[in-house]
């Protein structure tokens, strides 16, 4: 875990209001795991009092990594104004990361909206480990769809669901998930990231079908390192801090409100 300045190697607008930042940062890239996040200072000169957490989207060898973010408020709006060559103040890698046990044979990744961010990094790892997986991605419409264009990955294992049917299945990603379960072999493990309401649905469906499920939770964060207790969630083994005990949790552990 380091507090460090990272140089912006590239900024790419991948969909409407969704940007990818490539950061040069060997200290983080060398050790970061899928599911971990970085805590980023948005804006200039301590313009904001709090950092903003973003999952690592992709690791580029040992020297660089990417984040993928959506503009939703003032912090992300400021971040979207950063340019190639600028310097970003980041803390990371933070959090626990996805657990991928050796026995996993067949997995399913389910993303809601910008929840696709950490799943790309995970997909790369699964791919490298030759663990087969399908990807289900839900988003509002085709303009909000982030291409899941992992090199060499067979494109026909990635399925989109859009609210308006402008890309892939018309409906929610949980509906797509249910359809997928009917038509395909049952996965051993599900990895999912997205809005809380979606995560809960996915978790309940997974439980019903007896599938292990790991999810990436979001809570507002101040410190990002376990000190301030702002990011807690209720689990069966007591109250946990999403930033250090998570953000990845076993879905069966979560006590849903």
């Amino acid at each position: 875990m380091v507090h460090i300045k990272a140089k912006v190697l590239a900024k790419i607008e991948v969909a409407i209001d969704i940007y990818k930042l490539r950061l040069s940062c060997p200290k983080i890239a060398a050790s970061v795991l899928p599911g971990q996040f970085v805590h980023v200072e948005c804006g200039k000169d301590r313009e904001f009092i709090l950092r903003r957490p973003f999952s690592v989207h992709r690791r580029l060898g040992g020297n660089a990594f990417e984040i993928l973010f959506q503009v939703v408020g003032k912090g992300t709006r400021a971040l979207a104004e950063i340019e190639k060559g600028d310097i970003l103040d980041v803390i990371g890698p933070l959090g626990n990361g996805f657990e991928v046990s050796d026995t996993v044979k067949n997995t399913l990744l389910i993303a809601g909206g910008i929840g696709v961010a950490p799943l790309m990094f995970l997909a790369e790892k699964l791919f490298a480990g030759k663990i087969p997986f399908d990807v289900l991605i839900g988003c509002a419409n085709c303009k909000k769809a982030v291409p899941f264009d992992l090199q060499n990955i067979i494109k026909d294992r990635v399925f989109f669901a859009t609210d308006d049917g402008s890309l892939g299945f018309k409906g929610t990603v949980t509906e797509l998930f249910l359809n997928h379960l009917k038509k395909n072999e049952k996965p051993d493990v599900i990895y999912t990231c997205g809005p809380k309401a979606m995560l809960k649905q996915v978790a309940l469906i997974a439980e019903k079908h007896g599938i292990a499920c790991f999810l990436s939770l979001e809570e507002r964060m101040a410190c990002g390192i376990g000190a301030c207790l702002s990011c807690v969630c209720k689990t069966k083994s007591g109250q946990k801090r999403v930033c250090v005990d998570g953000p990845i949790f076993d879905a069966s552990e979560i006590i849903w409100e």
Partner: protein
Amino acid sequence: MKPSLEVNIAGIKMKNPVMTASGTFGSGLEYSNFIDLSKLGAIVTKGVSLKEQQGNLTPRIYETPCGMLNSIGLQNKGVEKFILEDMAFLKEFNVPIIVNVAGSAIEEYVEVAQRLSEEDCISALELNISCPNVKAGGLVFGSDVDSAAKLTTFVRKATKLPLIVKLSPNVGNIETIAKGVEEAGADAISLINTLIGCAIDVDSFKPQLANVIGGLSGPAVRPVAIAMVWRVSKAVGIPVIGMGGIMNCRDALEFFLAGASAVAVGTANFINPEVTMEIIDGLAEFLRINKLNSILEVVGKLKV
């Protein structure tokens, strides 16, 4: 000669006058990844109550203009577990540990203070009579001078440790309360705790904090803090520990000039985990440039 940053507050000898503010520095462990804890003036722990507390629902924080609201709600593991886990870690560092004490009744404060006094690695207690986030946060004691003084008297009797009383800024008569706790036996006063605040999401009509109301901290409140430190340090004879919105060395210097003998840094740790070290270095540099021998030559030196 190298200028001296040493201060002695209520018998607590500190290498420098830069402390961490309660609740913003975890158990210290978290920040040991970034800084050498033994270089701090003192570490102030998160508020500790008698029994474990779950705190409030999330969202517990929200960013506001130049500030943040928090409604953690005094989540803590209770005094026994705190001693077993946190103190065991902290006592390995060569740095004074000040334990922030919370409670909902005089007896609870007294019991926690007594229990902590049995340990020999604690340098002082800080009585939190000013947390706006929970009924059991003591603000009921911090809001009027009689309750504040009464609580101080009881805890004073229960411990030989130096006693710091942390005041709430959510009052009209801060001098009266400060004088009240001084007479009741406080060895030092710290202020400010957070201001009561609220923010609303106009899209959903819902409060930004699950608890509706929270405590405001950060640079937004600094002018309020400086004014209170100035007023209180003129009103009492005991040392004042200043805090509220300190982001860098120049901010800290405002507090010293206003009359604080030490400062605590809270919210700033979140954006910059090394901020305390930068402030300590900055203070030394400031003394050097201004050809001053000691930070004490700055304390209360506001030219009015």
